[in-house]
């Protein structure tokens, strides 16, 4: 009897100590997914959209996705390389590496720099690895963004996002529909002890992109079909100045605090919402989930979002961005694996995991998470979505808009002069390129 007990105890100990069926912890060792002696190796450079995500639930979800993927490709090993938070610098470095032939085999490429990568001719075609049906299912602006001048696709754009107006319903019960509505609501919130509407206004890409919706809503165009800046000419100039003056007026009237000229981070809005110092801010759709985590349930229930106000209720727009996966390797097998990785891990599963908006209409029905009211509203708002122009001069236009916005919001320069200066500099950059 004592022997039996001893054997049972040993068996139990052995069972508990033995590695269990937990693939999430088996195939990923450090930054390597797959067997160390796998004959083939793929280097994948990624953002935090992967097993190294700071949010444990996302990290675990991605670990499972990567493990499942490598289970189907057991003769491969994937080395994961993490990008830092400075996306602009990371993408520039990767472009430089790609031109010198030392880029990773496969990588996450920000949709806003994709035109630069396409123009530099460093991306490999994904066309052989995606069916026409799959490509046709993409939203038109996504399809256009990944397609090269020869008709081939050069990346897989798997997630998109958009900007909305968040509001505390207790302070601002009704969603502002127009610019005037927003100003009135913001001034009313100031009277109630808040600091008015917050938006990005510092030296930051978000400043340009979030504000551009106000220009696009009027039908304004940044560049022509050749990629030449035209925002400072003719009707475009009038629309541009009108949109800049809208923000200027918000600050000068006190509807927005002057400190918006220093904001260059969406986290600042979450902090202000958590501290209860603002009732309105222009943010990204992903912030809804962040607010849910950051606020108590009672506080979170007070928050809602609505499409960005336009100059008139029927003039709306919103900026849509997102991430793509693209291949740099000249080895067809690696390009194929990169395409499969984009399809199996990112197109759908990763969207559902992180509630990042898919780039295909059918995926909204496929995953239950997108049937929530919030995600349905985001999906509906995508119809007003507009991506950044696929012109290589865009980064310089964005830089000039950031500089212009700082000067205008702080009252250093009149709007017209600041706009003309930004246009001149953008045009000069275009001529150099």
């Amino acid at each position, binding site marked *: 009897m004592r022997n039996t007990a001893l054997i049972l105890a040993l068996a139990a100990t052995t069972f508990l100590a033995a590695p269990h069926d937990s693939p999430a912890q088996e195939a990923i060792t450090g930054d390597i997914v797959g067997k160390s002696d796998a004959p083939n190796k793929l280097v994948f450079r990624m953002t935090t959209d992967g097993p190294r995500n700071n949010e444990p639930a996302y990290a675990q979800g991605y670990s499972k996705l990567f493990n499942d993927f490598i289970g189907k490709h057991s003769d491969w090993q994937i080395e994961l390389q993490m990008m830092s938070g400075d996306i602009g610098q990371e993408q520039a470095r990767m472009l430089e590496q790609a031109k010198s032939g030392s880029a990773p085999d496969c990588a996450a490429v920000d949709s806003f720099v994709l035109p630069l990568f396409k123009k530099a001719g460093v991306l490999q075609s994904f066309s052989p690895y995606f069916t026409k049906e799959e490509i046709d299912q993409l939203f038109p602006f996504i399809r256009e963004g990944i397609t090269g001048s020869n008709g081939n696709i050069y990346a897989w754009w798997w997630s998109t996002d958009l900007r909305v107006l968040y509001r505390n319903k207790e302070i601002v019960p009704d969603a502002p529909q127009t610019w005037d509505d927003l100003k009135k609501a913001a001034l009313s919130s100031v009277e109630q002890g808040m600091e008015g509407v917050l938006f990005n206004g510092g030296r930051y890409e978000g400043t340009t992109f979030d504000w551009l919706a106000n220009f696009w809503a009027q039908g304004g165009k940044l560049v022509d079909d050749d990629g030449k800046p035209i925002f400072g000419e003719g009707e475009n100039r009038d629309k541009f100045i009108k949109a800049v003056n809208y923000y200027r007026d918000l600050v000068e009237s006190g509807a927005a605090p002057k400190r918006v000229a220093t904001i260059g981070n969406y986290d*600042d809005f979450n902090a*202000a919402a958590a501290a209860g*110092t603002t009732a309105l801010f222009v943010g990204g759709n992903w912030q809804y989930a962040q607010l849910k985590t950051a606020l108590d349930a009672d506080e979170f229930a007070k928050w809602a979002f609505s499409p960005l106000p336009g100059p008139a209720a029927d003039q709306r727009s919103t900026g849509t961005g997102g991430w793509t996966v693209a291949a740099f390797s000249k080895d067809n097998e690696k390009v194929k694996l990169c395409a499969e990785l984009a399809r199996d891990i990112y197109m759908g599963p990763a969207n559902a995991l992180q509630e990042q908006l898919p780039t295909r209409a059918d995926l909204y029905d496929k995953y239950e998470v997108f049937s929530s009211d919030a995600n349905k509203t985001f999906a509906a708002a995508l119809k007003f979505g507009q991506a950044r122009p696929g012109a290589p001069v865009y980064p310089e236009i964005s830089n000039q808009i950031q500089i212009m916005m700082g*000067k205008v919001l*702080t009252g250093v320069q009149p709007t017209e002069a600041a706009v003309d200066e930004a246009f001149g500099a953008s045009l000069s950059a275009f001529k150099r390129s």
Partner: protein
Amino acid sequence: MMDASIAATGPQRIGRKAAGRHSPSPLPWLMPLILVLGAFYLYPLIDVFRFAFTNVSLLGTDEEYTLQTIVTTLSKPELLQILWVTFVFTASSVVVQQFFGLFIALIVLHSEKRRLFGSTIVRTTALVAWVVPGIAGGIIWKMLFNEAPFGGLNSLLRLIGVPAVQWLSDPHMVMWSVVISNVWRGTAFSMVVMYAASKAIDPVLYEAAEVDGANPWQRLIYITLPQLRTAILVNMILITIQTLNTFDAIISLTGGGPGRATEVLSLYTFNVVFRNYDLAAGAVLSILMLTISLGLALIYARFLPKGEPT
């Protein structure tokens, strides 16, 4: 005579031969160092000069040798403002860092001499800021300067009844906010240099001055400062170059804004390369920075003592 002559030259010849046999050529000894310096120090510098004479960018343009990049980059309308911002930032930071570094060093020395409690704490506190990375320093000061109702410094000011300050959104104030954050981080370096140099001053000089009835102010003016002259100049050279190259703290604090209010030359160069992908223009700006640093170093060096006449 002949023998004497042989005797005089013989050993020299033998010595040279012996030296030739036993002293190996310096080249094999120096070659590894030359290779390392060449590969990691000289080659990038040469490449920067080469880039400056091209139109190379990351956007796929074919590389051509041209003088146009130099002309275009140096005639950009914003460059004058960038240089002015850089001058104000560097000059203010260097003067204030030098002053505070000397001030803290003298306080610490005096407190050590009098065996006062807390001198080590003062010294360590100043050094803590020095070990904080630039990016982290920028983030710390961004939180302190935050103009939100919950911002660090403004909350303190409100507590004592002082109205909030627009630390970062006022284009006239923001430069001083950036200088404050830079001085906070850089003062420790000046303090260490001044502390070490002050320790080396011969105490006999102070004893003689005391006998002569010199007051503390006279001792500072006629003994301490002249004795520290070399250290002050060397420190000025080092912190000027260090400040000219500062961009990490500024990028995380203001990003160069609002507008271009805090965009110094190093940050502008960074933006040209990493935001506009213009390698050639970045190379021209890098050479401009190098020239300014070298020029300032030469000017400072002219004031260094050339050694005592014998």
